[in-house]
């Protein structure tokens, strides 16, 4: 069956959020998204960290403003931690 557009968008959104947090906020690659408890917690925490950094509302949810910021062209150096 054709995938319903919303779920497809959701998939893309999650992909954007995960790759952004992995690139710039040290989200561990194997954060076990399928283990809803730990994986989700870490993603939410990282999302909150990113929202706090950019002065966005800290919701832990990929709201419009957060996604808008993630889509902005930017520097490839992470916002936290070292870049060696």
């Amino acid at each position: 069956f054709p995938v319903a557009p919303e779920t497809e968008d959701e998939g893309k959104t999650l992909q954007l959020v995960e790759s952004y947090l992995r690139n710039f906020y040290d989200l561990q690659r194997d954060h076990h998204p399928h283990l809803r408890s730990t994986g989700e917690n870490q993603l939410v925490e990282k999302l909150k960290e990113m929202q706090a950094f950019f002065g966005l509302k800290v919701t832990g949810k990929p709201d419009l403003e957060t996604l808008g910021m993630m889509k902005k062209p930017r520097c490839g150096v992470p916002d936290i931690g070292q870049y060696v």
Partner: protein
Amino acid sequence: FTAGNPKWKKNNLTYRILNYTPKMRQADVDEAIQKALRVWSNVTPLTFQKVEDKEADIMISFAYRDHRDNSPFDGPNGQLAHAFQPGEGIGGDVHLDEEEAWTKDGRGYNLFIVIAHELGHSLGLSHSSDPGALMYPAYSYTDPSEFLLPQDDIDGIQAIYGQSDAAVQPTGPVTPQACDPNLTFDAITTLRGEIMFFKGRYMLRKHPERAETELNFISLFWPNLPSGIQAAYENVERDEVLLFKEGKYWLLRGYDIAPGYPKPIYRLGFPKTVKRVNAAYSDETTGKTYFFIADRYWRYDENKRSMDHGYPRKIASDFGKIGRVDAAFQKDGYVYFFHGTTQFQFDPRAKRIVRQMKSISWFNC
């Protein structure tokens, strides 16, 4: 600061340009890099010397996708460039994504702005959460000819390398905070129901339905507008906004700058003795626009498109003790005059000031 506070152990650094992007003239690339290096050497004891055929502290190159540093580029947009903190080998090196549209102006991505940012990393700075800082992670265009290194970045780099040797220490612009009680404005206008407060290269945008105030660079919406807008007003009937700086004015039709602008302010009927406009507002019920310059004001008839006779007049004689006007706008029948951190609410029907507030009263602080 980058974790571990990495820094160069010497002040005289070397750089080398390994290759060039075909999208810009080599001379323009060289100039962009030299200007970017001066951004940092102007505020620290650091010096940068170009070398050609040997290892330099800072190796600058344009790279494509996977370029063997474990940080592949991602094609156009997205990640524009990256740089490594001070250290041997790859330390200090700057990599620019070759697939970006590099330019020396406001189109695509301005090479000078991006390289200046990356050099901040090469010298040991990490990202700043100050939206006006050069070290803010997201790209934003500023006209290179108007670029001033913000104070946030000066503080950061001088904390690592100390102050410059210049007799007079350079300072930089500070990002306006909406709830700063000392905030003053260059110009204010309504724009399709919103209120735009201009300050330096920034615009604070207040939508009546939103509690927060949005801070943006003027250049984000209007790359061809200069910073430091001095006056602005909306002609609601024509859905136009006029913006003034020095002897020129621009016209916004809707949200876009109309072609053929800027034009000299004398087209509006000002005498040659007038060099700039301090503030303006337009009364949509009478079709009259008021221009405030020093201690006087002119009145312009929007229908006749000419200045009314009998002006200028003294501001004090018709508006009371509001002093010099920095900015003004009309909303819901009242006129709001801003002088420094003071705001006066004026009732044009009763011809008197009905209230005095703080300049930041619109920002729900």
